[in-house]
């Protein structure tokens, strides 16, 4: 059995060994439905699609994903199990990826449990299933990007609350990167090229284009590179910080 699978299985099982998993899943389902029906006016719009559902995912993830990622490494460091884990015959990379995939799969399970909405909209009308599948893929990718950021920040502190708050802030900045709130801070002094580059980092823009049903290679690549970059950073941070 490969090392990544071993870490993955242990990690995923540990979510369900504590109430964390159940609390998270229930809250996620309740909030995503509440947003869809009340804020998104799912019925009133009279359209057979899941836009009102997926539109709120960036905001939902902004608070819920850091709640999952905050314990990823800070708990290992706090309890000392990081020493146990990293002296097993596995590489740092396998440990980082194994733990990340477990957290991602966990969010995937929560996301998959929203399938009744899909059934509902299919029952009520005749939605474009391609768009829905694309949106689910986009949502999953975005969750992965949030998680990888959380993984890196969680590696840098042994305090979970600090990890949570910092992750929310960084993710918020990235979600809002295409909007004046963030761009105005740069526009005054930075060259236009940099401002455009920052705008291009926005989660919202990339997610929005995927959830329209267009799976553009650039959007896929954006999220995958984002995940790769932050996981690589995680490994470096763990290496630097594991001694203290």
């Amino acid at each position: 059995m490969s090392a990544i699978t071993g870490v993955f299985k242990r990690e995923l099982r540990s979510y369900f060994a504590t109430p964390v998993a159940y609390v998270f899943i229930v809250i996620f389902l309740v909030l995503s439905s509440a947003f869809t029906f009340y804020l998104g006016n799912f019925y009133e719009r009279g359209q057979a699609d899941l836009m009102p559902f997926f539109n709120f995912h960036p905001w939902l993830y902004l608070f819920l994903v850091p709640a999952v990622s905050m314990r990823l490494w800070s708990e290992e460091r706090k309890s000392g199990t990081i020493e146990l884990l990293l002296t097993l015959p596995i590489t740092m990379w396998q440990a980082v990826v194994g733990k990340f995939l477990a957290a991602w799969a966990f969010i995937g399970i929560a996301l998959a449990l929203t399938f009744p909405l899909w059934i509902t909209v299919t029952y009520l009308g005749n939605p474009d299933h391609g768009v829905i599948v694309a949106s689910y893929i986009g949502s999953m990718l975005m969750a992965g990007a949030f998680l990888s950021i959380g993984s890196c920040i969680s590696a840098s502190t042994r305090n979970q609350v600090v990890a949570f708050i910092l992750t929310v802030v960084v993710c918020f900045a990235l979600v809002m990167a295409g909007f004046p709130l963030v761009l105005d801070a740069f526009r005054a002094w930075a060259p236009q090229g940099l401002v455009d580059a920052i705008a291009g980092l926005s989660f919202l823009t990339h997610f929005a284009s995927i959830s329209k049903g267009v799976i553009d290679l650039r959007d896929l690549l954006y999220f995958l590179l984002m995940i790769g970059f932050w996981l690589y950073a995680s490994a470096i941070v763990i290496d630097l910080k594991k001694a203290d």
Partner: protein
Amino acid sequence: MIETHALGKRYGEFTAVDGITFKVEPGQVLGFLGPNGAGKSTTMKMIAGFLAPTSGTAKVCGFDIASQALEAKRVLGYLPEGAPSYGEMSVRQFLDFIADMRGVDRSVRDRRLDDAIGRLQLEAVLEQPIDTLSKGFKRRVGLAQAIVHDPKVLILDEPTDGLDPNQKHEVRTLINAMSRDKTIIVSTHVLEEVHAVCNRAIIIARGRILADATPAELEARSRYHQAVSLTAGNLMAAREALSRVPDVAAIEVDAQDGRLTAFPKPGRQIFTAVSDALREQNIVVRELALEGGRLDEVFRTITQGTAAKEATA
């Protein structure tokens, strides 16, 4: 086999481990002694592959810890300080996980698990979450995970810390039983442990090796080595008699229990002379003992002696 060469670890200006070189052969149990913060744990963490050394090298069974890290980790069993484990897992799940990660072969897996569970007497708590166990059991779970793959090299950081005397005895018996074909390093600051399990001891302070010898050799450095201690009814008479023995260099009386200790001149044996002198004077002796030497005294002399020297330098 473990071999280190000028192994060192610096954190910025602070040197935690300052060029440690030693070699441990199979069958040896090496005791790491030293005050808190001496660099014992850091050295062990480097050999176990958790921390990267900033200078020097170490080899575990011939595998370099930097360039052949995975091979080195594979032949090694490690109990980190404080015996950390995943609290939400049951003992069985945890050991299964370690066995999987260690790549224990399917054909011997059950036997290895049963062996580790049996040796540490974990049968009764197998299905319990580790979080709910007592400190003693947690430590034993930590030891079980270190031996589950039958490693050639064992590194145990304070394996008996926090155990009661019976549990300490059991762990020492376990280490002795495993020592025949394994290379074992044990760190401790319980000096009696050195006698109980180690056939070699290294004393570390401020990141440097200050002594490397067998426990008996270390004791021979003690002022108390070959000294004679006794308790007598007539203390003054006994003291008087001892002072006339030619090879006695000094006599001390313990203010608390009135025990008398006669120290020999260097290299001399005084036991027979002392007991003859007491008999001649008809002094009633309640107890008469030949001292082997006191490790705690040697430990203090070695570790504090250099501190004083460095302070004046």
